[in-house]
């Protein structure tokens, strides 16, 4: 003490006087952003399947969309998508939930604007999208390939979260667990159910119930209770 601390402090600042500065010269030199950096929310209209996961997962009601049921293909058709960006918390829940990766954060962080309205981003359905869709619905071949695509998507969904998908055709939770387990081990069964679910739901329910009963009987025989399935719940 007695002034030594003061002199030491002066020494530290003196040392720093000649050290390299740490200032980043923004905007002359743009900052190096990490790959996961979350800047501005971006939306790709053409990829969106209007599933609504993003809208439901958003904590602050930033996202909203309008859909219309297409009469021909009986599919939801996205009309417009709105991002009310001023309420965004940059929590990434929407982007994480999106199955098509059509909503994501880019690296643009210069988000200031002069008017409140400018913050709101409205995406409208591009006209060429309708035209392309019309073309694609023509012809049997394309129809078939479309169906195949739907089956593939259903199969994927079954792998990802079987419980939720199967709850549409099966009522009892226990049955769902058994069936999802069965499908994980047997790809053929999974493919069959997925195909049926796309084409005919009622039939799918019947077939699924059959599978479950068969599995139940097998289990009763071997008495190896499938408790591992609980983890999926």
């Amino acid at each position, binding site marked *: 003490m007695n*002034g030594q601390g*003061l002199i030491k*402090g002066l020494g530290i600042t003196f040392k720093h006087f000649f050290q390299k500065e740490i200032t980043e010269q923004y905007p002359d030199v743009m900052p190096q*952003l990490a790959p996961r950096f979350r800047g501005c929310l971006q939306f790709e209209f053409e990829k969106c399947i209007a599933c609504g996961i993003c809208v439901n*997962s958003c904590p602050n009601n930033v996202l909203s969309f309008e859909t219309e049921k297409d009469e021909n293909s009986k599919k939801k058709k996205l009309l417009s998508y709105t991002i009310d960006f001023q309420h965004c918390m940059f929590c990434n*829940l929407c982007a994480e939930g999106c199955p098509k990766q059509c909503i994501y954060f880019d690296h643009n962080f210069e988000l200031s604007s002069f008017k409140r309205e400018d913050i709101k981003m409205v995406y409208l359905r591009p006209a060429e999208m309708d035209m392309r869709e019309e073309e694609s619905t023509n012809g049997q071949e394309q129809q078939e390939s479309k169906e195949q695509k739907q089956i593939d998507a259903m199969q994927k969904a079954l792998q990802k979260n079987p419980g939720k998908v199967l709850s549409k055709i099966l009522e009892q939770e226990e049955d769902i667990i058994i069936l999802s387990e069965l499908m994980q081990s047997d790809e053929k069964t999974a493919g069959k159910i997925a195909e049926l679910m796309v084409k005919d739901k009622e039939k799918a329910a019947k077939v699924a119930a059959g599978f479950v009963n068969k599995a139940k009987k097998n289990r009763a025989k071997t008495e190896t209770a499938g408790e591992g399935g609980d983890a999926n719940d």
Partner: protein
Amino acid sequence: MQTDIYRVNVGPIHPSTHGGLHAEAVMDGEIIQDVIVHLGYVHRSVEKIAESRTYQQFVPYTARLDYLATNLPVLGYCQTVEKLLGIEVPERAEYIRVIMAELSRIASHQIAIAATGIDLGATTGLMYGMRDRERIMNIFEMTGGQRLLSSYIRIGGVAADIPDDFIPAVRSFVNDVPQMIDEYNGLMTGNEIWAARMQGVGILNPEDAVKYGVTGPNLRASGIAYDIRKAEPYGIYDRLDFDIPTGSRGDSLDRWTVRIEEVRQSGRIIGQALDNLPEGEIIARVPKTLKPDPGKDIYHRIESAKGELGYYIVSDGGNKPYRLHVRAPSFINLMVLPLVCRGGVFQDIITNIATLDPILGESDR
């Protein structure tokens, strides 16, 4: 000579009230007669918001409670929900969570160090503290994508696996911690003016501290080695080796040195977690809709940078909490401000606010 007692409003618009604290000082000349703490300037009704958000949706809001140690309140909330639903968190996620939590603790303490520096007039101390904190912010940006409110910890684990350059960055930071502390000590702690401003200022007896429910570094500075990480270990803290730094006098200088020592200890914890980081899953399989059993309630607490951070959740069986209460350490720690300030001079209010280190986002909620 006839003198009069006058009242000065320290805050909410004041340079040194850490984001909107309103302390009404009753002064007799330069001597403080009393301090009345008025809270609520940054009230955002977070607990009410929780009732209208699903369990997952509320996660980003918790980051805004203690925004300087952003991962700690998120960790506390996620662990509470996991406890409520009986979710088992994968090993790797637990280790990553500890690393993030301790980095947040260092970040929070570094803000405390930096802010104490500027509150006491050592502007250069502010810059050095912030400079070192910037490296933690870069690490957060690397993992979570955001610097301040990184939104990285999720119910059941963490949002994404750590990137490749994460471990070298954290290692180099942890290795530099002792050097940083030497610098803070050289510039501030060892300084005679600094010691004179802090020694014997704002003494908090261990009895009073316990009586008021003070927790965290403020309690430990009073000489009580109470740390929830040791007393009631959560996560994987029971496997980690670290010390609880304590003070002896309970004054501002002790609170300050305890925080600096905690930075060192957090560095140790991070080092161990990095050494033992296992491979594996980073998030448990959590259903999209969380529906706890109706009527179930739970209280879970963690050691936040400021003290005991607890969440009390009551479920009514829906996907939203029926009631959520946050036991915010800053709120309770702030209640001793009048006690420690009384009898001191005006400048001690600033010193005491700085060393009690409240965060108003958390205490006002």
